[in-house]
């Protein structure tokens, strides 16, 4: 089964698209690239070398080449202190747009504020900060958390005949996705006392750590019903632990992720069972579009954050499995 939400662009963004096209039309230009050529965009991800960020970077680079603005990528390689410093340097270079991928809701908050104050538009990609900025493109974590929790309740809750035990494996407790996913999920679980969260330990985004956590949890709770991993990459470690314990048919492994073909392969191999994909490839394109708009001077009328929710694809093992839901690098 596939849920297609379509492009859910919030009102402000729609209004803006319309406004922008009107503006462009009145200027009588046919190419969007002419007035943003030569502008400077800096992208600071948590780390390069993972499908998520590489997928975004590919689309943004294509867009930069098309429209003639420059896109520079600075790679802190999972080091949060390096990231903060890279951002400081980037701010002092005064680019037109900064694209940041917040590892936690707090780390870059002050700097985002500082950048916005200096007139740099900050686009937050997929993971939000406590500090709002010009724009956000990314998954609607609250919705995902809610939907996954509902699904878990359906599979493990009253009447399912299962234990109701759930293990949650966040990437980092203070990362935006984990904060919101947990928030939403616990709200759902609160109405279903039969669901029991037996573990909520962060993996630091590492598959190996997720594997160890899962192996321990499975020893303590062999009747575990579901695992909710917040990111597919590290959750694969958890899936392997389940498989190693020979429980792949009994424990449901849930994850969210960018949904590249590695994820589909994991579903085929019964490492993951259900993945809520926010489609990194599509996010890359959304981000590129948002960059274009920001470079053209777009902003929300009331100064609030322009926001684009990524459409979701649900990749599920079983007879409805559809490998075309995944994208390839």
């Amino acid at each position, binding site marked *: 089964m596939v849920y297609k939400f379509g492009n859910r662009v919030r009102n402000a963004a729609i209004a803006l698209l319309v406004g922008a096209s009107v503006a462009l039309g009145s200027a009588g230009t046919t190419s969007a690239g002419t007035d943003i050529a030569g502008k400077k965009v800096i992208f600071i991800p948590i780390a390069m070398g993972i499908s998520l960020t590489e997928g975004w970077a590919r689309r943004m680079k294509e867009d930069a080449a098309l429209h003639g603005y420059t896109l520079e990528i600075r*790679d*802190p390689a999972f080091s949060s*202190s390096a990231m903060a*410093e890279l951002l400081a340097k980037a701010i*002092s*270079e005064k680019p037109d747009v900064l694209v940041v991928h917040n590892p936690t809701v707090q*780390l870059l908050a*002050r700097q985002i504020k500082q950048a916005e104050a200096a007139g740099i538009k900050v686009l937050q990609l997929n993971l939000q900060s406590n500090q709002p900025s010009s724009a956000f493109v990314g998954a609607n974590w609250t919705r995902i958390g809610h939907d996954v929790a509902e699904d878990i309740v359906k599979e493990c809750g009253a009447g399912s005949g299962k234990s109701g035990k759930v293990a949650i494996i966040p990437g980092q407790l*203070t990362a935006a996705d984990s904060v919101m996913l947990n928030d939403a999920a616990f709200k759902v679980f609160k109405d279903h006392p039969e669901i029991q969260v037996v573990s909520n330990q962060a993996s630091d985004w590492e598959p190996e750590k997720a594997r160890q956590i899962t192996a321990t949890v499975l020893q303590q709770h062999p009747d575990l019903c579901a695992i909710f991993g917040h990111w597919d990459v590290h959750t694969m470690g958890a899936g392997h632990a389940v498989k190693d314990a020979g429980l792949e048919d009994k424990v449901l492994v849930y994850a969210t992720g960018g949904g590249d073909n590695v994820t589909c392969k994991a579903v085929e191999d019964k490492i993951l069972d259900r993945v809520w994909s926010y489609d990194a490839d599509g996010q890359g394109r959304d981000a590129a579009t948002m960059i274009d708009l920001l470079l053209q001077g777009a902003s929300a009328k009331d100064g609030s954050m322009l926001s684009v929710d990524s459409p979701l694809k649900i990749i599920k093992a079983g007879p409805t499995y559809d490998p075309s839901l995944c994208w390839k690098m």
Partner: protein
Amino acid sequence: MSAQIDFASLPKQHVPLWVVSPRRILADILAKGWIESTIPFLALLCVLVGIALTTNDYFSPANLQNLAQYSADGGLVVLALLIVVAAGGIDLSVGSNFAMSAFVALYCFHILGLPVPAVLALTLAAGAAVGIANGIVAGLLGCGALLTTLGTMITVRALFALAAQAELVEISTSSRTDDLWDWIGFEKFLSVPIGAWCLITVSVLVFVLFRQLRFGWHILAVGGNRKAARHGGIPVRTTVFLAYLLAGLIVGLAGFLFAARQNSISVADTGIGMEFFALTALVVGLGGFVPGKGSPVTALIGFATIYLLNNAMINAGYRGDFVQIWMGGIIILILTIDVRFRKNRHRLLASTYLDPVALDAGSVQGMNGLMPNEMEPKLSAAEILASGRVDGPEDVILDAEGNLYCGNRNGCILKIAAPAYTDVSVLAKIGGRPLGLAFDREGRIVTCVAGMGLIRVTMEGAVELLTDETSRSLFSVQDDTAIRMADDLDIGPDGTIYFTDATKRYDIDNWGLDLLEGRPNGRLLSFDPKTRKTRTVCDNLLFPNGVCLTHDGKHLLVASTWACSILIFDLARLSDGPRVFLNGLPGYPDNINRASDGGYWVALAGMRNPVFDKVLKHPELRRRMTRRVPPTNWLFGNLNIGGVLKTDGLGKVVDALWDAPDGPLYMITSMREHEGSLFLGGVTNDKIGRLALEGADARWTGPASYWGRTG
């Protein structure tokens, strides 16, 4: 009786104002202590130039401020590690301690809501607590530093992970702000970020600690040699304990700055790998893992090198793992060059130190009928005194009673009692290598001691250092204030002591290299006992050796050994420089002393020969020889046979006393006339010679000649 010396009519001796030689400058620089950090410094320079060439506005003021702001906590951790390593330990727990301190700061600020000064105090206490734990186990209990800090590293990291997992969400959703907190984390004072001020302050304190403070010296002593430090009375364990404590405090401060700046921590990466980053910085700066070395400047040079390299590469947009590969490669390259350089520096120094120049002493003059092949060897008639009981009497001197005094190789002044000259006793133990001797007006011996300076010895054996340094000469790379090889002296009528520092570049053990160099490396100094001031009378003389006040008390004779000449100074006009009293000697003149007939005795320590005269004219030959040929095979001056010349009062050679080819006195470096006899000493001899002089004044003594008849 003394002849009238017409100073103005004598030929002037040219003395260079300063000696300029690129090779010498290189050698002098290589001998400097700070040259140790050349390669780290050059590496930093290369990194800076490389960054400047490949980037735009990396060194813009805004980015320099960023760098200063973000590097401060790393720099502090490097300094903390430096202190522990200097004490001979190692601290692997700095990264964990750093993370824990940052957590404590954030916890105190966001959860407990304490005022910022209290947050700082508690954070420092937390850092110090880890330092104390390390200090107790590694210092006081004496367990291995590596094992101990590995243990604390893991324990503290686990504590941090537990605590952070529990509190992190609450910390990151806290909305508390505080002006002082933000000021520390983000603001600048005099356009320098607050963190950087902390780093600067701590660096200066560490510098002062290792330079000036007793505790710093104790740390270095313990790190340099634990056993020796213990024997020296240093409380080793306490010192190590305090070093860890201090390091913990500094790490605590670093954690506090980090927390104030980032306002967040991450269980996954805060402080992870920091111990290795700091160790790498230290190794790059110090050229290895060297205990007993407390140099914050070099450590920070190493830190700046790898920090900037890393930062610039990341900023250039290279992938993180790619950057790490390059970092590794570049660090290995720097270390390889550095280790090679340090290993070979002394060789490079040795091969550049000797800096020969062409030297032409001119042909032998005024020796007609007086050369060894033209006359009898008069010294073969010398009587041998104290044979085997004196070791190296470079100079000999006699008091009014005829008692003989000389220095020896053990650093003593010996007294050989008249009249039998069989009773040898030690008058005074000085140390060093006593060379020239003179009696002052009060009957005390003043002696030049190579390696020490000018020393005065009373007849009771009391030793007093008069001077061991003079003013630094202009344009010298090496500090040449120390008197390196005080050689001979004489005392003017007003009590001023004139003495020679034969060479500023070589010690007593390798003065021979000064001959191979053939440069004017020596100087004539004076010491005024009334003002106790030492003055450089004339710099850049060619191995100034023997000094003798002329009979009229108005001039000073100074032997220039390698020039085979004797110079004369006018005491009334010393600044006019020397003139040539006598040149073209057949050998290398050493000490000069008065003769009873108004003339002078000149000791020849060795004889010239045409081959070596030729060698001295070819500096490149000498340079190649000293580099490629073992010292035992070098061409060298003939310094094992000599004699004594007698001149009249105006510098004409009138007689020569030669040794026979088979001795008995060989290298003669000094002679004194006393009541019709000539006493002969040699710097390598184990005896003193006495030769009866025909027709000499049998009542003449040196002290009487200088200070009037006594007794």
